[in-house]
């Protein structure tokens, strides 16, 4: 990405799609360079030592403008607020004297070497090492302070490096902690959530537009995730709907819906009863109350008309039935969306397996038809398109679940079904192995390329429409 000299040319060719956001991937070295660059930028206007500039920036979470402003208004106040001297003395170990006593280990006298920050609190070399190492071990970096009780003086980066100079492993860890804190302190930066991935991502899309432009970013390690909620790529559903949906799928609110839809309560003792067969003459197992399953009225009132409830239309029983059928409808609605959501999730997993099979297939084709590697890439490209569409389709059902019905939703659902149909066709095509009596390899290749291109267009259409809809506030969502 960076330093790619073709980028301007490619950039103009591949115009940014409305749902795409700008972001930049940083490796650990890039992060160091970035921090240094910010310090460089502020050092001369502030006219402070590099050390103090760095600490000031870290104290105000790298907000350059606000730091400059408060510094120009009140130089001494800003420095005092974070407890920093203008030019901190170079750290050095000094030989102790008669009056010296380390307050940590109580060693004293002239045999000891000590270090003192500009606040004047003196501690011996060994204690300082143990203290700083302990803090670094806990994940601390620039926030380490003078060990004296209630002293607010920041240790500073140079003294920390000086103290840890002999312990390379601890020193590296200190530097790592510094970088970690840089990424954590900046709202425009985030670590890639993939396990063991050491890349960080910068995304400048303002927080206020995260609900309308879902900030999906792609790490160099291959992970695609939402910069806002750190969830796996969930375009086109906005984060708020995703979190509601995940909560819904996780908790057992649907269990209670099932109970509501499939059971009734005994009118007398409120026991939950599931009718799994038999006639409408119910005898509660708990309280032995006899009632009619259809109208919920007492069985005695049914007189001789056994098995044929003619009280069906009375108001009281009607209300009871309404509430049952309403939750049944809600359950069915949820299941409709969930089945499709789940189906695409499973298919996306299969697509990953398909990729492995495809690679084998590509080898086969290459050997059988003496084609070059580049000529069989169409297959893996098709599988990439498939995975992309599966993910989008999956989350589009979450969007659909919360969307209020209306003309807009009909358009959305038409787009969705177009994409779904095209995706299934492409899936089928790619999954079928090439056989002797099937189409020739040239024919097959043409079909796959045609189909993938079509699917890709459908995909772009639906994403463009959803994104535009989010930005124009065209979609109406309802939460339960």
């Amino acid at each position, binding site marked *: 990405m960076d330093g790619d000299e073709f980028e301007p040319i490619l950039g103009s060719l591949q115009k940014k799609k409305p749902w795409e956001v700008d972001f930049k991937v940083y490796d650990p070295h890039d992060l160091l360079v970035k921090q240094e660059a910010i310090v460089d930028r502020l050092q001369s206007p502030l006219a402070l030592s590099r050390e103090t500039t760095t600490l000031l920036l870290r104290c105000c979470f790298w907000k350059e403008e606000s730091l400059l402003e408060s510094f120009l208004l009140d130089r001494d106040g800003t420095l005092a607020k974070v407890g920093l001297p203008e030019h901190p003395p170079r750290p050095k170990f000094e030989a102790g004297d008669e009056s010296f006593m380390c307050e940590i280990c*109580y*060693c004293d006298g002239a045999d000891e070497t000590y270090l003192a920050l500009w606040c004047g609190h003196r501690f011996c070399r060994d204690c300082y090492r143990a203290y700083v190492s*302990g803090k670094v071990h806990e994940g601390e970096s620039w926030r380490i302070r003078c060990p004296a*009780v*209630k002293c607010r003086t920041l240790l500073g980066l140079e003294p920390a490096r000086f103290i840890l100079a002999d312990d390379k492993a601890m020193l590296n860890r200190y530097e790592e902690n510094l970088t970690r804190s840089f990424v954590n302190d900046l709202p425009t930066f985030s670590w890639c959530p993939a396990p063991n991935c050491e890349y960080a991502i910068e995304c400048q899309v303002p927080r206020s537009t995260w609900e309308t432009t879902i900030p999906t970013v792609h790490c160099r390690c291959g992970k695609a995730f939402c910069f806002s909620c750190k969830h796996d790529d969930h375009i086109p559903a906005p984060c708020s709907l995703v979190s509601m949906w995940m909560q819904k799928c996780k908790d057992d609110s649907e269990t209670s819906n099932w109970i509501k839809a499939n059971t009734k309560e005994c009118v007398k003792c409120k026991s939950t009863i599931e009718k799994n067969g038999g006639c409408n003459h119910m005898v509660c197992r708990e309280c032995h109350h006899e009632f009619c399953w259809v109208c919920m009225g007492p069985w005695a009132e049914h007189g001789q008309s056994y098995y044929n409830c003619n009280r069906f239309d009375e108001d009281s029983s009607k209300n009871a039935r309404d509430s049952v059928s309403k939750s049944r409808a809600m359950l069915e609605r949820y299941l409709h969306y969930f089945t499709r959501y789940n189906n695409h999730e499973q298919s996306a997993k299969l697509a990953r397996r398909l990729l492995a099979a495809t690679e084998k297939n590509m080898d086969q084709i290459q050997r059988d038809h003496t084609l070059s590697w580049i000529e069989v890439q169409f297959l893996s490209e098709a599988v990439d398109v498939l995975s992309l569409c599966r993910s989008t389709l999956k989350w589009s059902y979450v969007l659909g679940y919360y969307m209020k019905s209306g003309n807009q939703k009909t358009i959305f659902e038409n787009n969705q079904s177009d994409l779904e149909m095209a995706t299934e066709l492409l899936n089928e095509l790619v999954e079928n192995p090439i056989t002797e009596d099937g189409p020739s390899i040239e024919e097959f290749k043409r079909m796959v390329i045609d189909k993938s291109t079509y699917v890709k267009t459908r995909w772009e259409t639906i994403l463009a429409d959803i994104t535009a809809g989010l930005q124009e506030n065209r979609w109406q969502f309802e939460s339960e």
Partner: protein
Amino acid sequence: MASVIRRLLKELQDIRKDLSDELLSLKPVNDEDLLQWHAVLRGPRETPYQGGLFRLRIDVPEEYPIKPPSLIFTTPVCHPNVHFETGEICLDILKSQWSPAWTLTSTCLAVHVLLANPEPSSPLNCDAANLLRCGDVVGYSSLVSMYTHIFAGQFQ
């Protein structure tokens, strides 16, 4: 290990002159093990803890004084920041704000100060904290006095 023992021996020497009206006793449980101590605090004057004697168990980690000691009340204490059953104490200097320049003596005195200055916004004992949070100082005082009398009375 050697440094923690050296430091504790030094503290032990200093303790004799540091003992005060608030901190009645602070010494190792036995002569063999310097990492286990106990202490006795006098309930602060003009608080509902007045008249009580409160025992503490102190466990010193081997990384002391880089790591803080752990202090636990062995006398039941009714206090927003003390767990009534376990005696655990919620105090910042015992956790994140620990500095190696604190000593066992100064730590005990900090606990003594905590007795007189409860912090009801981060409670371990919600019932005690709720009384203070809704401003029922009289209720709080009599509850604490009762527990002090029952569990920490001097004439037990």
